[in-house]
């Protein structure tokens, strides 16, 4: 398939691996930010093929994983409402809150529907004027424009029965949180390609300068990831930190200005809790105060629901690259994809789930 096969080409990959081997002279710890990249690394076994000097650690970039327990608990209360059509992307349906998940709410009679686009939720609101349609808007900068567009569209149509639970998170503050931790061992980043497709890379320049790390916007196919690793290693070896884009077919320096504009119009930056990590200042997006009518947490008065997370799970350390999934005593025993104890086992893109799915062998 065009635009896929050439980025999965074993020969190209072999060539890049050889270049990485030639470039590397000492140990480096590199973090891939995005869960999609983690998934690809495990699926293709890229970690097994890299020279021993390179350690990949897995970043916080799985939106399903980092959505706080509290947001899920609030969503569950709203979704159980009689006059509510609750809509969500597919993989949020299985994410457990404190005691429940959206699938179970559905099985008890809640009208919970999977949508592929937030605009489908707006359509439902249009077609069901006597019911409240709520969309669970989670994700990084990548999904924010579409979710913002849904509010913009609903506002333009005067749909008073549409609202969103917004739990958007932003990558740069999370990177800063990781880099400023005294235990940080990350020396370079593969930045999340699709986030950069929206945001460009200018916001990474100050981070690269302040913490003296290379940051390389990288795609998701094996050849993309190997190119990103090669560039990061080259920058590390030369001692020249900075931002260099390796997702050339998708990412532009300014990102997508039209998409950024709609995000700014509808959402504003706020402090945000991350599941497994805790509160990170100015790391999230929420609906602007003047659009509060579209804020489901206000509309359904669920802001009083506050949930503390269980202490057993080490997902916080995993999301910051301090530990690997199999270093957790619960990994594969008490904690599995069917019985997740924490954030990183919850979604298929979480680092623990990816390890469990693709590389359990020999770890037990």
């Amino acid at each position, binding site marked *: 398939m065009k635009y896929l096969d050439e980025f999965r080409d074993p020969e190209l990959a072999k060539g890049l691996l050889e270049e990485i081997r030639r470039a590397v002279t000492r140990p480096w710890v590199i973090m891939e930010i995005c869960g999609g990249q983690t998934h690809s690394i495990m699926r293709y076994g890229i970690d097994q093929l890299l020279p021993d000097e390179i350690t990949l650690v897995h970043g916080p970039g799985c939106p399903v994983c980092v959505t706080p327990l509290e947001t899920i608990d609030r969503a569950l209360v709203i979704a159980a409402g009689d006059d509510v059509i609750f809509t969500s992307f597919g993989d949020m349906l299985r994410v457990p809150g404190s005691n429940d998940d959206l699938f179970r709410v559905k099985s008890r009679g809640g009208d919970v529907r999977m949508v592929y686009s937030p605009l489908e939720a707006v359509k439902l609101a249009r077609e069901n004027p006597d019911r409240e349609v709520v969309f669970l808007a989670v994700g990084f900068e990548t999904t924010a424009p579409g979710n913002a567009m849904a509010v913009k569209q609903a506002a333009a149509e005067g749909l008073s029965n549409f609202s969103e639970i917004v739990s958007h998170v932003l990558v740069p503050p999370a990177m800063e949180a990781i880099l400023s931790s005294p235990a940080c061992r990350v020396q370079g980043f593969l930045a999340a390609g699709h986030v950069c497709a929206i945001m460009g890379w200018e916001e990474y320049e100050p981070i690269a300068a302040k913490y003296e790390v290379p940051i390389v916007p990288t795609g998701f196919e*094996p050849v993309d990831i190997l190119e990103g690793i090669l560039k990061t290693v080259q920058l590390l070896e030369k001692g020249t930190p900075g931002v260099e884009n390796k997702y050339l077919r998708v990412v532009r320096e300014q990102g997508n200005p039209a998409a950024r504009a709609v995000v700014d119009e509808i959402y504003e930056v706020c402090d945000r809790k991350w599941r497994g990590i805790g509160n990170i200042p100015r790391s999230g997006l929420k609906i602007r105060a003047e659009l509060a009518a579209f804020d489901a947490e206000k509309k359904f008065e669920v802001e009083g629901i506050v949930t503390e997370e269980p202490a057993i799970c080490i997902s916080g350390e995993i999301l910051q690259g301090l530990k690997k999934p199999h270093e957790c005593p619960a990994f594969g025993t008490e904690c599995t994809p069917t019985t997740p104890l924490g954030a990183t086992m919850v979604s298929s893109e979480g680092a623990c789930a990816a390890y469990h799915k*693709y590389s359990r062998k020999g770890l037990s």
Partner: protein
Amino acid sequence: MSSHPDFEKMSCPLPLMDHDTIQLAHGAGGLLSAQLIDKLIVPRFTSPELDVLEDQAVLDLPPGRVAFSTDTFVVSPIFFPGGDIGDLAVNGTVNDVAMSGADPIALSVGFVLEEGLPMSDFHRVLCSMETAAARAGVRIVTGDTKVVGRGSCDKIFINTSGIGVIPEGVRLSAGSLAPGDTVILSGTLADHGMAVMTVREGLSFQSTVTSDTVALNGLVETILTAGPGTKTLRDPTRGGAATTLNEFAKSSKVGIKLDESTITVRPDVAGACEILGIDPMYVANEGKLIAVVPAAEKEAVLAAMRGHEHGRDAAIIGEIVADHPGLVTMKTGLGAERIVDMSVGEQLPRIC
């Protein structure tokens, strides 16, 4: 107008007999039920056993062990590219019976119809069942029809049960696999699951993907003729090839090593999987089988399968190994090795 009633012209108001939708009365056992069965159902499924309309079918079976299987079909939507719930219900049970090595002979059919189902839709389903049964060479010999109120089922549910007779000497078992055996897949993966998903409410998008639903009893016969030592056969339906292979590994307490480069997915199906973030190894197939054969017979079986219309794209995809019992692993396109795990519930499109 006369003030006296005219008894001469009085008539009993007979219920309306021509309905364009299924009514509750169609399942009530009375006249409408009889009419539905006689006019719509029996003409499609004519067989000596069914035509006598007894409460049971009486069959004369050839000698041998009998394979017996049942399955219930609730697919939504009921019509999808490449097939419908009718041919799926026939092919599905034919395949379940055939995977034992049996020659499928007869099917029973139970319908649960939702009040309000368009009669034309029911007729269309019956016609595709007739065609599928004829293609598979099985007779539909007994059946039942129930109608439930609107909302109590989704348009139409179909249960089919089937029996077949296993030829002398054939004993297939997923528990009989041994290191060195060869794993053969009969064709491309994920066609059925993705065909249904592309027309499912909320996800619909234009594509050319069609279901692979087909009866595989002919292919099974071909395999057993070419490979009399065949260990096991299974059609990877729900849960996809990954689930079937994991079942094999667990049943025989062996490992399975696959080679990703040998597993084929049609480009349009691969595209749909990429868009939705779904792994074709976990998507349902309705016209494919996985055979495990002794290494000595692999070339003969592969050649025979490729000579059959439903096995043209057959390929050797891996082997049974003594390492990592219970686990399925795959050599990735890049030459690394990874686990192919059981699926955890339904495959869900990812956020990004």
